[in-house]
Structures are given as C-alpha cells and as structure tokens.
C-alpha cells in the first residue's frame, strides 16, 4: 500500500500544485451535489504553490467558442426559481436567469478572501449614498432572451421591482431579504433603489445570493401564470428542453450582455447537454467512457477513476454544508434533560472523533479529509468561518476535541455517570446518494457515543415522508437527530436561521433554542453597518455557540469533482463552494478545445 499510496498522493499533489486546476464538475456537481465545486484546494497542509494568475506554464488561454458540453443533472421538482422546493431549481435557474449581482469567479485560482465576493451582473454599478440606500444601475446591454414572450427587449428597473415583489410573495427564502424596506424603480429605466429598514453590512452579498432574488420577466408570469412551463430569462443560456428523467438542453444565448477581455461574448459553448443519470455507478462508467465531461465523485471512487483516466483533473473543496447533531426541542422549551444541561451537550461533542470521521470518509489516496465546521461551515472561508481548531476559537475550542475521558467526566458531573439510552434520527433516503459521508457518520455515531455512556438506537427516516416534514422542519422528534443544515451564502444567515426564535427568523432553529442574550447579539449584528465589525461580532457569536453547544457541529469533508481535460483549464474556477450559481459563475466562462467540441 505504501508505494502505491505515495504514488497516488504524489500524482494528486502534482495536479493541484501544477495548478492544472480544476475543471468544474460544476455540471456534474450540479447533478449530484448541487454545488459548484471549484476552486482552491482548501487544505492548508496540501502542497501549496505560487498563486498563478490565468495561465499555465507553457500554455496560453485561448478560448475556442463552440461545441457541445455533456454533463449530468438530476431531475428537477420544479422550474420556477421563486418557488423552489429543492436547491436544484436554483442550479437550473443560474443558466437561464440573472441576478442583480453574482459571486466572483476566475480562471486558475480565486484567493480565499474573494470567495463570495459580489460582482456586477445585471447591475453595472452600485451606489450607496447612505447606509440604508442602495442604488443599482442596470447594464444597458442586458436583454431578455429573444424568444416569446420577451423578444429580446431590454431589462428594466420595473422588471427588478416586479421580481422582488414576486419573490417576497412566493419564496420561502423571503426572510433572507427581511431587511429590505422598499424597492423602487426610477428615475429612469435603468435605476433601481433598494431602501433598507436598518443597516446591513452584507447586503450586496445577499443580493448576489443564488438562492434568492432571481430576476424574472413579467410577461412570462402574465402569460403562463408561473415560470413552470417555460423558462425565459436574461442569462447566458436559452432554455432548449427538459425531458424529465432523460436530459436537459441549454443553448447559447447569442445576445448575452457579458464579454471576456478579448471582446468575445459569453458563453463560449454552443450547447449544454445535461443527462439525467440516477445511478452513481452509471455516472462513473459514463465518465470513464468519456461520454460525460465532468462529474462530482464520491471520494471512495476517486482512485478508481484516476487510474482509469490518467489525465483526469481532480478538484477538491470543502463545501459550505454544515453537518450537525440537533436535540429534541423539549430540551430548550421545557428544560427537559438530558440535553438541557450544556455539560451533556459538550460531552456529546467531545465524544465525536471528528478527525477520525474525516479520515474514514475521505478518498483513500488523500492524506487529509476536510475541516471541522461549527454551525458556520468551512466552505465560507476563514474570513467568516471560525475554525474550531484555530487559537482564535479560544476556550470554546476544547469542546471540539476528541476526549472520551473528559466527556465521561462531564457526563458524571451532570449526573449521567451511568449513561442513558437515546434515539438518533436521520434520513435514510435522498441524502445517501448525494452526500456520501452522511449515512456513514450516522452509522459511526453509535459506536462513538457508546464510549461515553450514551446508548444510541438509530432511527432511519424517509426523507420526504418523515425526516423533512417532521424531524427537520418542525423539530418533531425525540432524542437526537443527525442532519445537514440548509445552505446559505453568508455566516450571518447561518447563525440567524439557527438561533433566532423559531418562527421569527429562526427558520432552522428546529430545536427551538431561546437564548435571549444570543438573540440580542444576533439582532445587533444584523444591524451592524461595518463589515469588519460585523466579522468580529460574528466570531464572538461563533465562540459563544461553540461554548454552549446548542447544536453540535459535525464535519466538513472534502468533496471531489473530476473532469476530462477537454477545454478550458478551469471551467471557471469560482472560489465559493456552495453557490448554486453554476450557470453564470462557471459554465459561462468555460470552453471546449476544437477536437472535443462534438461528442
């Protein structure tokens, strides 16, 4: 194993260090993990190299327009991005529709401090005369798709107002824009003014979020009633077709308003064909056979694929997906044991061998598995994510350390020296295919917790039937639950949703934690106008919640995207891991080499 192991490790390191980075399995990722996975290696131990700008040694970037890109995608539940039932709708939306702003992307590598940096999309310019006012000036070249019912007319401020109102009315994500007081168009067609109720430091980041304010044409809604039957937007691709369970096809929008530095219009690719392949083995087989160009790959299968496809590009990234344990709500609502006592909660956290779990789920050829998240995941970057292993976490960091003896002492001190029996709920469907480490950790937890005296019975639940409607959304369960937190694009959203009162902004506070001081701190943070101050406040909050362990965070493993070297060195290497804006943040800037343009 040693010789073999080191060969693979060298190869992988070579790839990353030579900055042959990383082809987006954006499109494959879209299908299976719903995340853009591109960009920095993420691991600080990995062989890091000089940050290259946009070229590879000895190669030049020469975009060659044209071609058909073949990737994978999963079946959608619905197409209307203002009414999403699942995150995949947002991925779909990112090819067709635009936002006012989007997140930064680049070839080569995007430095961590630029992750989730809002950059212009529909809005060319933003002015902020005061803390409460944001004036967006739309790009005059932005046009709707040249099809019925919009016929290529210009995108106006009225369209933005219309979309905002519809979003507020229909979208379950609307609380993310709760700080907006009003949206008005004028004085001309290209100016939109957002007035806020209070200062909000991360407002532009929220505007750029790929889960929220998609801009839709009013004609479409008037004609069809919703955006379910047709998809007409202002994005880089036109909607070709969607044959359920068969494939998607997107066509290049010839009038798209963004250009590259050579003056070529984006996107380069003529046709984007995404095939629906439900079986993960089939996906790998198709990839190896070069029928699809990029995939998200389960870590355990990576060595197989790497050996079958020697020139494959491998990208690994931690995502902004928090995995965590949550407790029955009677702990906080009725002050019922055993989890009302923070010593027990801390014991649970100390009983989890996070590094061991990361080693268990990682790709066999890797020597690191990922990061430890707190409620804020590592995928947001160190600017906003407080690494539990870092000295900045302070004393609270010790609750993350794996220490069975300490944990038992805590259990003893809390009066549970004899341990107790408890049930652990988790979802046994849906997640199993797309988040491979989720069920593995679920099955590993009983063994770990047994060591500190907690006797766990696993309770698998059907995702749609039980887990989502009851356990996750309402906190309607007994004992503990192992889950994945909804994805947001900024740390404040994670924390607000988890700790504000349930039903009053705490959409993900299913355990109904109610800590008045914490709530006050969060509200102060929400109103903080200065980004740097906000950062400090959020770090304070992360320290506090780590100390209290209201929710016990799990792990943030690396996720892999593999692709064939058929074109641009990076099908856009956006930094941020979890944005669903693959369409505009990734595939828009990718191209295929001439010899690979026809499948």
């Amino acid at each position, binding site marked *: 194993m040693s010789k073999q192991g080191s060969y693979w490790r060298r190869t992988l390191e070579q790839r990353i260090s030579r900055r042959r980075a990383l082809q987006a399995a954006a499109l494959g990722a879209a299908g299976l993990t719903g995340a853009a996975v591109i960009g920095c290696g993420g691991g600080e131990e990995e062989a890091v190299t000089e940050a290259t700008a946009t070229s590879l040694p000895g190669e030049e970037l020469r975009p060659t327009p044209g071609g058909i890109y073949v990737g994978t995608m999963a079946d959608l539940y619905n197409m209307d991005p203002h009414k999403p039932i699942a995150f995949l709708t947002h991925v779909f939306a990112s090819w067709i529709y635009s936002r006012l702003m989007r997140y930064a992307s680049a070839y080569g590598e995007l430095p961590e401090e630029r992750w989730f940096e809002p950059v212009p999309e529909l809005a060319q310019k933003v002015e902020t005369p005061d803390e409460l006012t944001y004036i967006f000036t739309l790009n005059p070249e932005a046009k709707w798709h040249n099809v019925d019912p919009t016929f290529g007319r210009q995108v106006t401020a009225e369209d933005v107002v219309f979309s905002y109102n519809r979003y507020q009315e229909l979208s379950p994500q609307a609380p993310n824009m709760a700080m907006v007081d009003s949206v008005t168009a004028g004085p001309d067609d290209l100016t939109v003014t957002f007035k806020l109720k209070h200062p909000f430091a991360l407002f532009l980041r929220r505007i750029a979020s790929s889960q929220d304010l998609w801009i839709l044409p009013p004609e479409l809604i008037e004609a069809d009633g919703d955006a379910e039957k047709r998809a007409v937007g202002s994005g880089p691709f036109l909607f070709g077709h969607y044959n359920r369970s068969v494939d998607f096809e997107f066509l290049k929008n010839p009038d798209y308003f963004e250009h590259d530095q050579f003056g070529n219009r984006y996107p380069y690719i003529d046709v984007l064909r995404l095939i629906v392949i439900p079986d993960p083995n089939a996906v790998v087989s198709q990839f190896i056979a070069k029928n699809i160009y990029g995939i998200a790959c389960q870590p355990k299968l990576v060595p197989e694929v790497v050996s079958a496809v020697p020139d494959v590009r491998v990208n690994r990234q931690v995502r902004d997906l928090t995995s965590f344990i949550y407790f029955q709500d009677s702990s906080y609502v009725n002050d019922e044991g055993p989890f009302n006592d923070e010593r027990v909660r801390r014991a649970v956290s100390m009983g989890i061998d996070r590094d061991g779990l990361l080693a268990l789920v990682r790709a066999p050829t890797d020597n690191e598995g990922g990061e430890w998240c707190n409620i804020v995941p590592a995928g947001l970057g160190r600017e906003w994510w407080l690494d539990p292993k870092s000295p900045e976490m302070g004393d609270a960091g010790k609750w993350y350390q794996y220490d069975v003896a300490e944990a038992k002492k805590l259990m003893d001190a809390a009066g549970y020296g004899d341990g107790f029996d408890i049930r652990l*709920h988790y979802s*046994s469907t849906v997640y199993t295919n797309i988040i491979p480490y989720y069920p593995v950790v679920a099955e590993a937890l009983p063994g770990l917790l047994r060591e500190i005296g907690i006797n766990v019975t696993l309770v698998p639940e059907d995702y749609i039937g039980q887990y989502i409607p009851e356990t996750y959304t309402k906190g309607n369960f007994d004992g503990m639950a192992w889950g994945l937190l909804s994805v947001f694009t900024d740390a404040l959203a994670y924390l607000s949703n988890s700790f504000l009162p349930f039903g009053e902004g705490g959409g993900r506070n299913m355990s109904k934690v109610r800590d008045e001081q914490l709530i006050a701190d969060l509200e102060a943070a929400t109103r903080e106008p200065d980004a740097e101050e906000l950062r400090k406040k959020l770090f304070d909050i992360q320290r506090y919640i780590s100390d209290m362990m209201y929710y016990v965070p799990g792990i943030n493993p690396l996720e892999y995207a593999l692709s064939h070297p058929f074109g641009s060195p990076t099908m856009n290497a956006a930094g941020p891991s979890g944005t669903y804006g693959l369409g505009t943040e990734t595939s828009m800037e990718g191209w295929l080499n001439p010899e690979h343009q026809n499948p």
Partner: protein
Amino acid sequence: MASVDQADIAEYLALRPARKPWVRLLRTLWWFTRRKPLGALGGFFVLVVLLVAVSAQWIAPYWYDDQTWDEALQGPSATHLFGTDDLGRDMLSRVMYGARVSVVIGFSAVAISAVVATFIGVISGYYGGRFDTLFQRLVDIWMSFPPLVLLIVVVSTFSRGGDFWDRVMAIIIVMGVIMAAGSSRVIRGAAISIKNNQYVEAARCIGASDARILAQHVLPNVFAVIIILATVQLGAAILAESSISFLGWGVPPPFPSWGQMLSYKGILFMRAHPWIALWPGLAIALAVYGFNMLGDALRDVLDPRLRGGR
C-alpha cells in the same frame, strides 16, 4: 420418464424393516439425495443458511457492528475472510448475522402467508358458493397489484416510526399477506380436488361433520401443498426483503440485512471494492436457490399432480 410418486415412497418404506425413527429419517434422506440430487443440494444450502442464522453469534468472528476504522474497505485477508466494509466491519460476520434477519423475516412471512392462505383457500375451495366468489374476487384484486409496489407503499408507511421491530413487523405482515394471495389459489385448487375425492364423499355419506372432514382429510392433504409452497415462497420472501432493504425501507442499520448491505453502499463501492456487494449478493442467490431447488424436489416427491412453476 419415470417420476416419483407416493406409491414409490410407500413401497420403498414398506420394504425396509422398521427401525428406530432417526435411522428411518436418515435412510429417507439418503434415498432422497440419490433420487433428487439437485433437491438435496438445495437442501444443503438451506441447511447451511439455517445453521448460520441460528448460531451466528457463536460462530461469527466479530460482532456485526464492530467498527475498526483503520481497517475500512480492505479486501479479503487472513483476519477478515470476506473483507471489511466502509466502517471497518467484518463482512463475513455481517453476512452471517444477515442470514438471521433473512431467515426470521422469511419464515415469519411465510408462516403468516400459510395461515392466511390456508384459511382463505380451504374455505373458498371446500365450501364454494358465495364465500368462494367473494374471496376469489378479493384475491383477484389483491393479485392485480405489483407486489413490489405494494410492499414499498405499505412498508414505507408503517416504518415511519422507525423502530426496529415496527419495521420488521411491517415487512413480515405485508409480505405474508401479499404472498397469501397467490398461495390461496393453489390451496383452493387442492381443496377442491380433495373435496371431490371419494374418501371425502364417503365420509360425508356416513355423516361426518364438516369440521371433521376438514381436519381429517382436507388439511393433511393440503399440508403437502403448503410445505412445497412454503419452500418456494421462502426464496421469494428473501428476495423481496432484499429488494425492500435495497430501496432503503428495510431493516434499519446497524443490523445487517443482505439487501441493505447490497444497497447504495454495496452498489456504490462495486467498482473499487467489489467484495462489499459480492458476498451479500451471493448469499441471497444461494439461499433463494437452495429454497427453490428444495421446493422443486419436494414437489416432485410429494405430489406430482402439482405442476411446477406455480
């Protein structure tokens, strides 16, 4: 073109002097093996499965949830004859414990099926008339549904609670009831033909009550049918349970069931670590094979009138 029937057996048994019962049993077995080697082979597989199921906790080298993460995903080796899974658990032990799950669920389901089917089939066949029409309509309706779909829908309903026993009971009852439909038809057929038998007519003439006739004539003869059906259905039950577990609604982890071991994880690792899927799959195949072969042979031996394949 010789086939075996009861006359042969009676003759054979009559020719040998009566010995101690266990010797007779052995001789019958030997004779059976010689006459129906395939059936005997099947019987052997069945025996192995049953033995493993019963004695799993004594003969399995590891506990089924013995996780040693360092040894995860290793191929067959001296310490782990069948390799390990992704949590470092010994595959051989898990397959052995899995036999227990398959056997318990299979036998229970078949038992329920036998009881229900006998009840419906005998009453339907013996009494005929309106009972018959009503029951047969119900059975018709019941048999129109694709069994797997029924299983999924009903089991996913009942396993909402997620308790181990809730789920297991749900699977057993649902499978039992579903299988009972088809069996009841066969038993009904047998009951009808027995009803028209001369013995039964004679008994009725001398005034024997229905209950007596049922107990003395119908049930014993139907018994052979039940046994044959049972062996075949055991195979089907094991297969059905593995399908349900494969889809995620079966026995909850960490208890190993063959289907569950084969499900997303086994299939997922099929490329890189094929043994995870290989052993449970083989176990299922061999067990089902064994039961079917045995059932086939028993059918030939016990009642040649019954066609194969039903």
